[in-house]
């Protein structure tokens, strides 16, 4: 059964963990043991389904999610895995770690007074868009707090839609009014919101996953070299075949050194094979005298990514940085030293507005930057090929943001 991975997004206390907890209970995915445990730690007589997810003692004591977690449920012929993430601003690296594995996102926006569409809600959407999610379902939560009012729902929907437009979000979006705590519109259509003619949340998810296409136009052969090992006197190149196919006898190029080679042997799951397809981890023997190295890309001889020493990026910063500092990017598990050559503009992830660049980039801001690599490396535009067009940014070993090649 194919698994669909859904990441939660949204500000703290807007109901991310509660929504997953309620869905697990409603679909029978939560064991009695877990439900009873969650009951035991619920305070003030009100059962908190979110405690099925928040299993750290500290998380229950402080009534917040500290780190990302995952839980699965089966609905009709779908296996859904939900990634819960913390909403707090200071836990954003944990949120990114979780959300980077999501295909689709559920954005929680609470209707409770003083909650609504928060700056942090917007940052989450901005980040998830850069991480490569393929679609967004906005769950407008705590509808019970506004007496299930259609007008209130429409107002928030309008605000969100304006924001998505401002940041140039182009993926499919749908909106579902819910009450996560009372399981309204999660699995079954709610009779408290008859004005809502769409589907309950889980049906929306099923529809999204059914119509989901692979991310971006796929190119030909791209295999990312992971290791080169000596095996019984042969030099084996271990790589992850990310797209395309590879055959014995085929001519390939090794990027970034542009060395040409022939594929002599292929091993798939420990056994010799004539060819291999996308998504497999292979070991190959190649004819080239030039040694492959971790981080190299194996590609077709005539259809290869651009090995470059410079590219333009949109990067989101979780720490304040100075343009002149030492940086390193991690791309395909390869670490490459870089310089930020130019900060062309600063972009607010909250409004989508941009202003002239400066040498200092504040935390929580995005920027369009010109990146200069210490050594030539093959990259693609993120919109063309997600895996070769995204990176994590480090400064002196400290994680400070994520970026995409534009």
């Amino acid at each position, binding site marked *: *059964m194919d698994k669909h991975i859904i990441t939660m997004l949204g500000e703290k206390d807007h109901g991310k963990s509660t929504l997953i907890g309620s869905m697990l209970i409603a679909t*029978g995915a939560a064991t009695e*043991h877990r439900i009873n445990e969650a009951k035991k730690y619920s305070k003030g007589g009100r059962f908190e389904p979110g405690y099925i997810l928040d299993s750290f003692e500290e998380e229950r004591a402080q009534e917040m999610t500290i780190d990302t977690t995952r839980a699965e449920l089966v609905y009709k012929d779908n296996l859904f895995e939900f990634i819960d993430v913390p909403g707090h601003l200071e836990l954003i690296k944990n949120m*990114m770690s979780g959300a980077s594995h999501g295909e689709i996102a559920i954005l929680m926006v609470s209707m409770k007074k003083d909650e609504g569409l928060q700056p942090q809600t917007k940052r989450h959407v901005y980040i998830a868009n850069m991480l490569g999610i393929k679609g967004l379902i906005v769950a407008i939560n705590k509808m019970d707090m506004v007496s299930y009012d259609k007008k209130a729902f429409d107002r928030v929907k309008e605000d969100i839609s304006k924001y998505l437009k401002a940041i140039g979000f182009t993926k499919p979006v749908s909106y579902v009014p819910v009450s996560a705590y009372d399981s309204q519109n999660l699995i079954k259509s709610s009779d408290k919101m008859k004005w809502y003619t769409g589907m309950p949340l889980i049906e929306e998810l099923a529809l999204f996953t059914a119509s989901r296409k692979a991310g971006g136009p796929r190119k030909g052969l791209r295999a990312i070299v992971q*290791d080169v090992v000596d095996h019984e006197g042969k030099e084996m190149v271990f790589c992850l075949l990310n797209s395309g196919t590879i055959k014995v006898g085929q001519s390939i190029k090794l990027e970034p050194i542009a060395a040409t080679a022939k594929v002599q042997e292929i091993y798939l799951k420990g056994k010799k094979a004539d060819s291999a397809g996308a998504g497999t981890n292979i070991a190959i023997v190649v004819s080239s005298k030039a040694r492959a190295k971790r981080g190299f890309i194996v590609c077709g001889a005539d259809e290869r990514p651009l090995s470059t020493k410079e590219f333009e990026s949109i990067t989101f910063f979780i720490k304040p940085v100075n343009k002149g500092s030492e940086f390193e990017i991690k791309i395909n598990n390869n670490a490459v030293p870089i310089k930020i050559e130019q900060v062309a503009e600063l972009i607010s992830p909250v409004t989508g507005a941009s202003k002239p660049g400066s040498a200092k980039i504040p935390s929580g801001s995005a920027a369009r930057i010109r990146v200069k690599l210490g050594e030539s490396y093959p990259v693609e535009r993120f919109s063309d090929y997600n895996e070769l067009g995204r990176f994590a940014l480090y400064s002196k*070993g400290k994680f400070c943001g994520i970026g995409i090649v534009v």
Partner: protein
Amino acid sequence: MREQDIAKLEEKSIYILREAKSKFRNVAALWSMGKDSTAMLGLARKAFLGKVPFPVIHIDNGLDFPESYDFRDSLAKKWGMELIVSKSEIKEEMSGFACCGANKTDALKRTMKEYGFDALIVSIRRDEHGIRAKERTFSPRDRNFKWDYKNQPEELWNNYSAKEKGTDHVRVHPLLDFNEVDVWNFIKVNKVPVNPLYFAKDGYRYRSLGCTHCTVPLKSDADTLDKIMDELRGTKVEERSGRQQDKEREYVMEKLRALGYM
């Protein structure tokens, strides 16, 4: 419980195992002779051209089932594995926590230090326990083997942590994405040898294996791989319900893991 696409799961685990070998100087794996760590060794053979290219450590408190010892010795020989038996001493009064908790961690610490391992492959799964679901794929431990769970490193896409300053070793979790039924599916598809205690005898079988002092069998008639998978597809009972240590007190798994337990 429904099984996932086993080919995809395998590929992900193979990638993780190769990543561990590529990134670290001196890798070892924990082997309890249970289904999960044995399946992991089967995966390692697929990742590394038919061989398990790292030593496997059995933390032995002397109280494992005779079937487990036999299984250990025969499979280690059959697959040509380098087996390290690390004896753990039981100091406190006998209970689930004492026989398989802190004392095992002490033995592990000793062995890790003696051999200088910088990465340890541990076959935990997210669906086993709420706390294990919080783990990263690569999870650093400090000198006291402490899991700093309130401040875990970032792990974006498949960019896993390396060994940083202050890290004693990194725990590598290639089976996090597997569910219990997926492990059995892998064992079945790949004909991986498995500890006989998992199969029902006289109406009982072990669903999760600790040592003889802290594990009880469950009522079951599942005496084949297919029957085990069928049983799991319909179950509402926690996998580790036959394990003492998980029940003893609140957050015991969190405390154990923070102290370096597997």
